[in-house]
């Protein structure tokens, strides 16, 4: 009995630390793109963009987590603001253009 118990327990221990076969979500940190200048620029929430609720662990019925860049407020409103990244201006050509 003991001869069987040891290898069985050993295998169960290995199983407990084995990687799960389920898929995982890996949010990408976008804060490195905070200072790209005027063309590609983050803009703070300010009056126009208020906080995105539940920025790190999914929200509003969605199982997908996101890491929204957080940075000190620059609009004078205080606190931390979540940042959205904006692309503006003339871009590449497209057949679907208006």
């Amino acid at each position, binding site marked *: 009995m003991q001869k*069987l118990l040891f*290898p*069985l327990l050993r*295998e*169960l221990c*290995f*199983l407990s630390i*084995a*990687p*799960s*076969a389920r*898929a*995982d*979500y*890996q*949010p*990408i940190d*976008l804060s490195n*793109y905070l200072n*790209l200048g*005027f*063309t*590609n*620029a983050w*803009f703070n929430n*300010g*009056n*126009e*963009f*208020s*906080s*995105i*609720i539940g*920025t790190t662990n999914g*929200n*509003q*019925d*969605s199982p*997908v*987590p*996101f*890491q*929204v860049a957080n940075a000190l407020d620059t609009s004078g409103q205080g606190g931390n603001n*979540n*940042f*959205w*990244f*904006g*692309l*503006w*201006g*003339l*871009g*590449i050509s*497209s*057949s*679907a*253009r*208006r």
Partner: protein
Amino acid sequence: MGPGNQLFGSPLSVTIPINLAGVPTVYTLADNTYGCPGCEEFDITFTPARGTPITYGYFGDGETKDYKLNCGTTGCDTTTNASYWFIDGNRSYPGDGQWLQLVGWSLPSNFETLDSITFTQVNGVDGAILAGVTVQTTPDQASVLLLGARLAAVAFLMRRRLVR
């Protein structure tokens, strides 16, 4: 600055390094200013470590909406089966406040390592808005095989115990 302060110049794209293998799906939380139904507002390009990049478009009233929940631009309805993050307002559509649309992009099974993701502005008037990127990852094949082998070993030991 905000959508009222539109900026011009180049480059109008941003490339985000990823360098992850086994990525079946990439999720984005994005929107645009203004827009119109069927208009290509901005693109996303998935670049593999080896092979040909794949580009998909965000089309108005499909993959992207006017962030202002504006019925006069990208329509008055939600995209079927799409998830939205509402910011401020009454969390309904149409309504007040802003929203972001969650879009999942599936990559081919033979895509191998995802080297980077590039967002490129297409429409010169409507600005793309990007708030979040999340990649879905699956365990590598070797880990799954190891797990299977250990499960088989446990099953074998238990079976031998029962037979005795």
